[in-house]
């Protein structure tokens, strides 16, 4: 009997000690580990850009999504890794006084529906079903490669949604809607299927914050143009076309993105503050609790570009085949080679548009 009490006492002591040790562990994490957690770990970038609403008077939503498309493409994500869903064809709408063109500004400087826009899901293909299938990778047999999100555990995924939303849903076309729960489930499946490394969820609709409320998956950073109960508003009208051109949140986000270059040091933390209430009228909502990194230390190109951590080496590197001996035995015997400098050309001639 006494023996048993003794054993129990021991167990208790061990348990308390273990608890204390656990508590101490977090405070004395190795610095290297903390740094590593803050560092980019992705190997590729994907973007899913969705305009969920149709009809001519929703021109601005198409302009929104095309502008974001233009930005991510300019920052280096190739078309093959951008899934663009546009529910209506504004460029060829019979009411468009500028046929084949879509502008995001009344100045009509940039035709965002330029020559090299690849729309992956168009018109009535933009449905909730297709969107969820796309996210979770459960596309039907025979789906074209360009319509698949072929991301992996190393992918940083940007999801941008725009359209008409309400508390807990986003309307697709004129007939159906995706709920915040469905969206959260879809992203959880993505996590379980190792389809993303980090996910940046950006949404510009009315009551947009309600869409990220149900998220539980890790490594998700979400930003919404308005809180629950608020409307997101449009920015301005082009009186020559006769429609609202762009939404406020996207307008200010673009204003920020336009200044970002592929090697810019801008961070996501700055991006989250692009639209203060005084210009946006709605309050921008941010959800950071699922995200382990400090947004102010995350370069914006982690999501909006395709800049992977690379090291440029001018040194000769030995590449040894598995079953061969190293054929360079003495490095000093090699002929001298001039050191060279790498000049990176900007991918997009943005100076022409200034």
């Amino acid at each position, binding site marked *: 009997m006494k023996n048993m009490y003794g054993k129990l006492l021991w167990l208790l002591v061990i348990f308390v000690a273990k608890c204390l040790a656990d508590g101490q562990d977090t405070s004395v994490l190795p610095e290297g580990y903390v740094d590593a957690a803050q560092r980019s770990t992705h190997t590729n970038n994907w973007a899913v850009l969705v305009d969920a609403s149709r*009809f001519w008077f929703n021109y601005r939503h198409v302009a929104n999504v095309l502008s974001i498309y233009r930005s991510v493409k300019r920052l280096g994500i190739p078309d093959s890794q951008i899934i663009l869903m546009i529910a209506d064809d504004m460029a060829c709408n*019979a*009411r468009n006084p500028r046929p084949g063109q879509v502008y995001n500004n009344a100045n009509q400087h940039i035709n965002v529906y330029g020559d090299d826009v690849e729309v992956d899901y168009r018109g009535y293909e933009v449905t909730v079903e297709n969107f969820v299938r796309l996210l979770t990778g459960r596309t039907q047999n025979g789906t074209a490669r360009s319509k698949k999100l072929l991301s992996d555990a190393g992918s940083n995924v940007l999801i941008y949604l725009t359209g008409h939303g309400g508390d807990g849903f986003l309307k697709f076309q004129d007939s159906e809607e995706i709920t915040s729960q469905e969206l959260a489930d879809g992203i959880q499946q993505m996590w379980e299927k190792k389809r993303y490394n980090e996910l940046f969820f950006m949404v510009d609709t009315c009551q947009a914050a309600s869409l990220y409320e149900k998220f539980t998956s890790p490594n998700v950073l979400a930003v919404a143009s308005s809180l629950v109960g608020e409307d997101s508003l449009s920015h301005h009208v082009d*009186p020559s076309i*006769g*429609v609202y051109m762009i939404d406020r949140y996207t307008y200010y986000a673009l204003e920020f993105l336009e200044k970002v270059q592929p090697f810019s040091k801008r961070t996501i933390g700055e991006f989250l503050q692009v639209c203060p209430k005084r210009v946006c009228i709605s309050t921008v909502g941010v959800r950071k609790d699922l995200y382990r990194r400090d947004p102010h230390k995350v370069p914006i190109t982690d999501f909006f570009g395709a800049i992977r951590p690379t090291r440029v080496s001018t040194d000769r590197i030995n590449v040894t085949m598995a079953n061969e001996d190293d054929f360079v035995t003495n490095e000093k015997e090699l002929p001298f080679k001039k050191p060279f400098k790498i000049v990176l050309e900007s991918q997009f001639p943005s100076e022409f548009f200034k």
Partner: protein
Amino acid sequence: MGLLSDPSISTQSKLVDGLARHVRKVCLVLYVAGVVWFFCLALPEFNHGTYLSENALSPGLVYPEIRVDANRLAIQLLEELHRERTNHVSTTPHAWIAAKMNEFGLETHTHNYTLRYPFGGGKEYHGKNVYGILRAPRIASTEGIVFTAPYRAASSVHTDISPSVPLLLAFADFARRKNYWAKDLIFLVTEQEQLGMQAWLEAYHDGDRVPDANRTYLRPGNLPARAGSLQAALNIEVQDLEIDYVDVRIEGLNGKLPNLDMFNLVQRIMAREGIASGYKQAPRKKRRHSQSVYEQNLRGMLSMLASQASGVPTGNHGLFHRYRIDALTIAAARRQTHATLKGNPGSAAVPLLKAIEGISRSLNNLLERFHQSFFFYVIVNNDRYISIGDYMPALVALVACAFVKAYLKWATLPSASEMEAAAAAASAAGSESELPSPGEAEPDEPFDLPYGSVLIYLVATLAIGYLCNVLPLQQYFLEIPMGAAPLTTSVLSFLSLIGFILPFVVVLPPGGLELLHVAFLLIYGCAMIAIGLLNFALGFFVAVLTVPLVISLETSEENTKSSFRNSIRLLTLILNPMMIVYVIVLAMTFYQFPELPMQKIMLRAATAAMDASAYGLIDSVIYGNFLYFVVSTVLLPLWILCWTLALSKRRDYADYLDFDEAPSPQPPAPPAQRQAKLKRN
């Protein structure tokens, strides 16, 4: 008298008892409530501000692009047209209009139609419309918008609105140069007022149908080209290129209205262009007034209902509503004084052109027909309206009286025992025959109410109403060398007279009057609600006039004084539909010619009323206006029923018993009675 057959012990529910005691009060309260509710609608608390429901319209988002050169074109066209008008005094310069449309690049067609005038021995009139279609450049021709301008010949008695055509053409020329049309635009010039419009619409929608030559009066012919389903229409009636204000006319056939969004759209765009515009807009001089808001609202409301009640469209737009095309007229009035003119006459019509452009671009944005906003509403003020949900209670409260009374009458229909008691009393008082005393009478067969005879009576009255609708158009009547007005009036008066005499000739068996009363109340209530739903103004005005009579009408003789009964009879006579038509026309004549002596006014009103009845009939056969039908086929039979009930002719019970007891030859009785025998052994 046995305990069980004691009529003082009622087996009816307490509700019925209570209702029976207070029915007059209940009905009166309902009536007053209905009328008070109606007058309350003019209070700002009871009506709402207008707003645009349809997102697609997005009015005023585009800057108008039409410039002063369009105005110059309009002025030039107007001058040309004036030259043409000297050659075409009483006809339309079709060739000139078609040539201009062709010149501006429209797909131009003409449309011929024929009217076989119902009266006047098959005389035929021919008409011709000109229209040009501007095909939407980048979309299939599945939808269209119509811009119409009625053309009035120089010899017309109506106000000259010839500048509408140049304005329309100038806008067409502008529109031709634009690439953003998502719907075909049809520019239509009609002649002969509403007839041309009606013919064109019928040809557009039913042109393929082979008309039955004997029954159709308007032969619309067919159109060589169409532009898909018409979504909206704008009728333009401009008195001059220099305008003072714009009157927006909305009332259509049978009081139908365009969607409230369309009216709001026009108001929005007009306001943006700085044009004084509104519903029943009056000239500036008359606009200065010191009325209270309530009085203005009430006036606005009543004037709208008054013009709606007749069911005659206030412009060519009204005929579109029948085809579920939202349409309205913008009628621009000539500017009277040039002293206040600010701009130069060279750009006078620019605001109006800009407004037309703005309206057309908004309509062009439509993705489906107008459906978001109200179709049933009353405009109180230019920016305030009453929706159907707010005005219907007024009518429902009025008509509820009829249903409450009908329920009461039904619940207190004379039962077998009462009948016997009454019969016994009659026989006891009357003849000293060897009838079995009521105590001995065995109620082995239940007493039947005379359903059959009442039904036949109802059918007879309805048949009179139906004949009113059909008879004046029969061939043998049309061959009588008589004008349309006297013919229609004489047929109507003759049939009314039959209705007047009917209750004297046909006397319903016992219980029949009560049953007829129930039937009358139910038919009246249903008819009023149905009319009120289709045309609130008509339903409400008729109900306001007739409900007091319906409330006070009583068939039982016991607790009513004879003077009261006689006054009700008088009231019934006054409320004869023909009488009311005459009184309305009389009031209008008096209002229009106050200087004439009374006798002349009455005579003039009589001819005018006769004309009105003929026009009502013509409107109903050509345009499908149902006012004539309502008056002749619904209200006249109701009045006959009402008159029967007010007279309350009953047969003497003793006579009746004699008739029934006699086994052999019966006294000549109308067949209506024979079916309703009181079964009694």
